[in-house]
């Protein structure tokens, strides 16, 4: 089920909220939690009920490991020892074995469903083997809920997390707003709030903020990302695939549009996820903090997909030694983190190379921290150039497509952007296009040019302007604000006749 779908907005979400708060009337909060888990499983299984087996199986395995660790902790306590001592290697214990098992199970699950096909294809290519396997379908959101559970298992091992009840843990893992495309929520951000008594009644201030944030995220996704996608897809469907002349301006506009599309799509989704969390009384972590204002690659990753960066820092970078083992090791660790990030994004060399590009850039910044402009604006400008250029690799379907794009990016310009504007045929401009086609077809290219300009201007405005949270604090609680939100919602709602999926769904 998608957030941007009629069934979700008109049926699922209202039903879920009514059930959640209605069942909170019972003394025992277990009823409401069970309801939430049930609804979350319905949400996840809506696409393919078989995916539920994977999710529920993964949940039980990790909870089992957590319970077994609890048993191990009890034994350490009997000896007057702490789990943290075992984690620090000061005392022996069985919990390390359990951690290993947990990591193998989680990473193994991810490897099988996400990377096994890629692994086999590359073995066949590089080693001339002829392994033939059926294409393994990728369960939605597997990267997200697997990483979430890895963080819990590791924290359990370090003694930094209690053993939650199965029901609380199930609520945490399956909570539908963040289940499919993040943010990667830590147990400590969710379960205490789940257990808090005060969250059993709706907080109307928080609830309305949630509604406002949902509308803004919804608008970003449906009214901006999906429109930009029309142009981006029309180019990437042909570049390097069929004979297509890619000139500098087409390449530039396409990659700008893609950068904004990706941002609006992912941040729109995350806004919706956080907003729904707020409606339920949970504060899910922020995932985007004006990434287009970043003045270095390091800064990008403090602002873009923040929870992934947080996870990789806590569970990859620091365990590898972080910056505690000298500069060379620090650079290696940073590079490895971005390599992992690239691999996490997908089973394709384009993602891996994209991760490598960022790894190299981060290492560069660490080795030459003073090699920067004095002007912050210039640093922002060049950082954005780097970001958008690496997005060519990220978006390309194959390495050869990426190579073609990079090679052709600086060829001669073609008038009116090689007709790519014609992809921006949306109901909003239908009448104008129809009228021009009939009465003045010679002005169609000009119109498309104007459309591209308009889309980019709007994108710049929203990408570089106020963050959603800021606007909500100052404007949403006014009559005008409520009216504007209603207009955005309605405009997005009537756009749902054509439904699109989120870009980060298959991660």
């Amino acid at each position, binding site marked *: 089920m998608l957030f941007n779908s009629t069934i979700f907005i008109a049926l699922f979400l209202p039903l879920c909220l009514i059930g959640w708060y209605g069942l909170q009337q019972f003394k025992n909060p277990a009823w409401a939690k069970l309801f939430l888990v049930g609804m979350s499983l319905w949400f996840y299984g809506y696409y393919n009920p078989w995916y539920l087996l994977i999710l529920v199986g993964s949940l039980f395995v990790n909870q089992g490991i957590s319970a077994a660790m609890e048993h191990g902790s009890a034994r350490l306590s009997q000896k007057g020892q702490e789990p943290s001592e075992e984690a620090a290697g000061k005392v022996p214990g069985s919990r390390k074995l359990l951690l290993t098992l947990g990591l193998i199970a989680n990473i193994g699950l991810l490897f099988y469903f996400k990377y096994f096909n890629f692994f086999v294809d590359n073995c066949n290519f590089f080693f001339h083997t002829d392994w033939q396997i059926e294409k393994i379908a990728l369960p939605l959101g597997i990267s997200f809920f697997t990483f979430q559970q890895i963080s819990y298992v590791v924290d359990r091992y370090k003694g930094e997390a209690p053993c939650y009840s199965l029901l609380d843990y199930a609520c945490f893992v399956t909570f539908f707003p963040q289940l499919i495309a993040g943010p990667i929520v830590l147990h400590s951000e969710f379960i205490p709030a789940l257990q808090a008594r005060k969250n059993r009644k709706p907080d109307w201030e928080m609830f309305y903020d949630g509604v406002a944030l949902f509308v803004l995220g919804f608008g970003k996704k449906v009214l901006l990302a999906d429109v930009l996608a029309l142009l981006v897809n029309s180019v990437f469907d042909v570049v390097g695939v069929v004979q297509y002349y890619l000139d500098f301006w087409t390449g530039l506009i396409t990659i700008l549009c893609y950068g904004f599309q990706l941002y609006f799509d992912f941040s729109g989704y995350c806004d919706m996820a956080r907003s729904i969390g707020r409606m339920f009384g949970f504060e899910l972590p922020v995932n985007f903090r004006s990434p287009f204002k970043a003045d270095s690659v390091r800064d990008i990753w403090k602002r873009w997909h923040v929870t992934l960066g947080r996870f990789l820092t806590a569970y990859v970078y620091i365990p590898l030694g972080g910056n505690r083992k000298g500069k060379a090791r620090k650079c290696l660790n940073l590079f490895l983190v971005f390599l992992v990030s690239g691999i996490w994004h997908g089973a394709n060399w384009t993602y891996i190379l994209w991760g490598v590009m960022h790894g190299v850039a981060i290492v560069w910044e660490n080795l030459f921290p003073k090699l920067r402009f004095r002007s912050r604006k210039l640093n922002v400008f060049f950082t954005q150039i780097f970001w958008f250029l690496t997005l060519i690799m990220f978006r390309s379907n194959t390495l050869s497509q990426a190579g073609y794009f990079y090679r052709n990016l600086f060829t001669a310009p073609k008038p009116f952007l090689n007709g790519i504007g014609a992809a921006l045929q949306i109901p909003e401009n239908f009448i104008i296009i129809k009228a021009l086609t009939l009465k003045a077809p010679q002005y169609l290219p000009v119109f498309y040019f104007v459309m591209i300009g308009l889309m980019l201007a709007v994108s710049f405005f929203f990408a570089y302007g106020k963050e959603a949270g800021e606007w909500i604090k100052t404007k949403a609680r006014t009559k005008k604000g409520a009216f504007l939100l209603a207009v955005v*919602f309605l405009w997005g709602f009537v756009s749902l006749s054509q439904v699109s999926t989120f870009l980060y769904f298959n991660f």
Partner: protein
Amino acid sequence: MLTGKKALKNFILWVAAGLLLVAGITVVFDPFYQYHGPLPGMKDVLFERESQVIGSIRHFSYDSVLLGSSVVENCDSSYLDNAYGIKTLKVVKGSGSTADLMYYLGKAHEKQDIKRVFYGLDLFALKMPCEVTVVSQYSPNYLYTETILDDGAYLFNKDVLLKKIPLMLAYSFADKNTGGHAYDWSEDKTFGPAKAMEAYAGPYVQSGESVSGEQDAIGAKDASETKDVAGAKNFLPEKDFTDDKEIIAANIALITEEIESHPDTLYTVFFPPYSLLMWDDTCRQGELSEYCYMLDEALRTLLSYDNVEIYYFQTDTDIVCNLDLYMDKVHYSPDINQYMLTCMAQGDESYRVDKDNRQDVVPSLRQMCQYITEEAIYNYYPK
């Protein structure tokens, strides 16, 4: 600043008002005719068959039906209205199967007392699956239910608001795709040999080339068949269509069931003239015998009913062999649509098939096909 609760109430009220407004606009203009026919003062615009056929069946006023596939769409049904003193509704489906067309016809019978049905019978439709597809497979299927409860995708639809409604208004104002010209698509189309021949590579195969099942030129059905004749004509063996007979019979039965259920309705069945490209291709694919069989079965069965009259245009070589009149293998210009209607209205005996001359139809078709494959096709393609 409002409190959270008050702001939420404001928001909900505005959203509710907006939804009512949007739904109201759609209900009033109703471009798919889900709730009512054309508004007073507006013309009966029909420009999108997939979305509008079923609605027009339910809410338009008519007593006759012009039924068929895309080759029938350019017929001016107002000519029939004037000729017979009737009011005809065009009911069409692109590559329409017999089952789908009979479904539509059945719905029309439910809604109106149908005096006449003009049915452009495509032979290929007689070997299509007998299941109705328009309801289950066609999206959006809210069009096919009669409850408003599943109309959300119609009532709150940006395409409907910003494309279909303005288009309907513009067409009504410009008198385009209205009345007898419902679904007429010929305006922007080019008819002529250059255009028609784009759809057919011709009666050739390259020397030494192994022809796959996908290739159109020679129409090899079996991928293992190798055609290794240098630049010559080629024909696949006549296909064994024994397995298809059951489905052909079932499709004809769908038509006869309809006819038998409405003995007071006069059915005028006509066979539209496909181009020589189509017949040349059919012969080379080894499918002529099957077409002849379908034709013979259809004629024999339908002529057993007193309320059926048949017109057969497929062997008029002045039409069939003149690619100036075609834009591809089967679609002819509106002049041919008009010609057929005129012939039928005038009761032109040269095209009329009855029990006396039925047995001459298939031989004449075979004769024409021989002429096409041996001579006429080479007026357009080099030998």
